[in-house]
């Protein structure tokens, strides 16, 4: 990567993309692509030293950690889910006012006897005794889920990594329960799931993040100040 160019990573699709572009626009950074709508690299009008890269939200975290991008807008949940070696290379500059969501544990609505993680712990222990197997929890967030459950004393479980449609896992018997991110709770409800009363793991929102490896890059601090207003 060119050392004089400041690389900003934003999410390549969906609401996070729209909101991130709005922030750039608000700060007089007008972006354009030379490769049409599908181009994944954009330039900024009148600012030759800035380049905008459209990436997957998780990729933004990884690239910030490597120092391949200098600034990025991504979810706080994804930062916290990443390995500690990645997290320590990234600074949260500002929590932005969009992308609000909660990572939480949820069970099928038929689990009327499971109200809290205490109930879950007991069900997990019964299940292990009867079936000689551990209960399975489906999630895209294995690290955060594991930590949260340890803190609540639940240890008899295995994590099944989900690559999408996590809400479907209990209905398909792939997992007994899930830990998933939700902004309104509608998808969970539609899929007959209900959160545990003490099942909240993390409150998340979009964040402006910077790479600690780029700290001394020319013009970067000014840009951070501009976004942080």
């Amino acid at each position, binding site marked *: 990567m060119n050392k004089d160019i400041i690389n900003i990573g934003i999410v390549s699709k969906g609401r996070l993309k729209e909101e991130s572009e709005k922030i750039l626009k608000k700060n007089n950074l007008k972006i354009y692509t030379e490769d049409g709508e599908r181009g994944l690299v954009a330039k900024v009008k009148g600012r030759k030293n800035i380049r905008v890269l459209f990436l997957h939200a998780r990729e933004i975290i990884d690239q910030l950690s490597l120092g391949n991008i200098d600034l990025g807008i991504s979810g706080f949940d994804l930062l916290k889910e990443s390995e500690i070696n990645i997290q320590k290379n990234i600074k949260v500059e500002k929590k932005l006012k969009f992308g609000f969501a909660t990572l939480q544990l949820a069970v099928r609505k*038929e689990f*009327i006897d499971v109200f809290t993680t205490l109930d879950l712990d007991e*069900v997990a222990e*019964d*299940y292990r005794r009867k079936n000689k197997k551990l209960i399975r929890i489906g999630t895209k967030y294995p690290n955060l889920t594991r930590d949260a459950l*340890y803190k609540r*004393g639940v240890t008899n*479980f295995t994590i099944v990594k989900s690559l999408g449609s996590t809400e479907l896992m209990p209905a398909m018997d792939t997992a007994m329960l899930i830990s998933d991110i939700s902004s309104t709770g509608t998808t969970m409800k539609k899929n007959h799931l*209900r959160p545990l*009363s003490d099942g909240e793991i993390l409150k998340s929102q979009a964040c402006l993040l910077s790479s600690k490896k780029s700290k001394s890059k020319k013009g970067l601090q000014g840009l951070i100040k501009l976004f942080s207003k």
Partner: protein
Amino acid sequence: MKSKNSSNKILALIKSQGFNKIELDSVLETKYILQRSGENFRKYLFSFYNSNGEELCLRPDLTISSVLRYAQGNRFNKEKVFYTGSAFRKSYNKKNILIKQIGMEIFSSKDENKDDREIIDTSIKVLKKTGFKKAKVEIGNFKLFELLIQKLSIPQRWKNRLIKFYWNKEYFSQLLKRLDSNSDIDPFIVAGDHKTYLKMKKEYPKKMIAGRTYEEIIERYERKINDPRLTKTGKTSSKIIKEFLKIKCSLKDAPKKLNAFYKKYNLNISVAKEFFPISTSNQKDLKFEFSTSSGRGREVEFYSSFIFSIDVKIKGKTKTFIAGGRYNDLSSKKLGLRKIPAVGAAVNLAVYE
């Protein structure tokens, strides 16, 4: 150098007390650790796969390795063993990755009280041998807490929870808060669940949902509603537990103090001598204390009754030099093996570093 000299002295002394030296495997099959304890151990396991796809790990704990050795060797008779080595645990603090210890264990005790006494007596001899003149010996007994909980007027599931989470200080205090206030119960959800319950009752009982049958969900739900948690008894029980966990006194006064406490709350419990397996409490320079919270907050959740620690002062800092206790349920509840009554102690060699 000092560490090596001291560890040689300790090993010689333990051997002279009739303990046999054993070697422990450094690499264990991960399945023994994870099958029953679930993900709890995984957080600090250094694990890897061999060419057959079997998951192996560096031993995370020496006591666990010694129990596995005893169980897998089809041993059934009483055995007194000692060993030395390191346990390996993932940690962000480099100092905590290698845990250097000397350990001694007595498996398949016939007279548990006698063996408990032998472990603590040997530990005190180790202390003296290594030149520590002054020390604090703290004794506790998990059974006392279990006895108390069984006497309280709270649902059985809550008794089990409090017993299970006794060692986890932070989470335990959250539980007491819930017991105190019923703050975790949402009447709106409870009403909704009851409607679902009535619907489910009409369905085929063996119908499965997310790995559970309707029958077992309904059975557990009915058990809960038939044994409700009442605000008044929850509050009283929480108060009694909090007061109990504050009891700390000299070992000599412990029976008197405990019995007075039980009498105050009409709990119909009386403490006898076997809860304090000490024959050396008249030793000068050693301060013998009793605490109902002994060992809480440390990772010792496998102890089932007697527990102790010996703290020394080194360069103005208090450090735990020896700690141990009885762990009759470790093999069956945590490792999925047969029940092996056992008591042991570990000498922490890191105090010399």
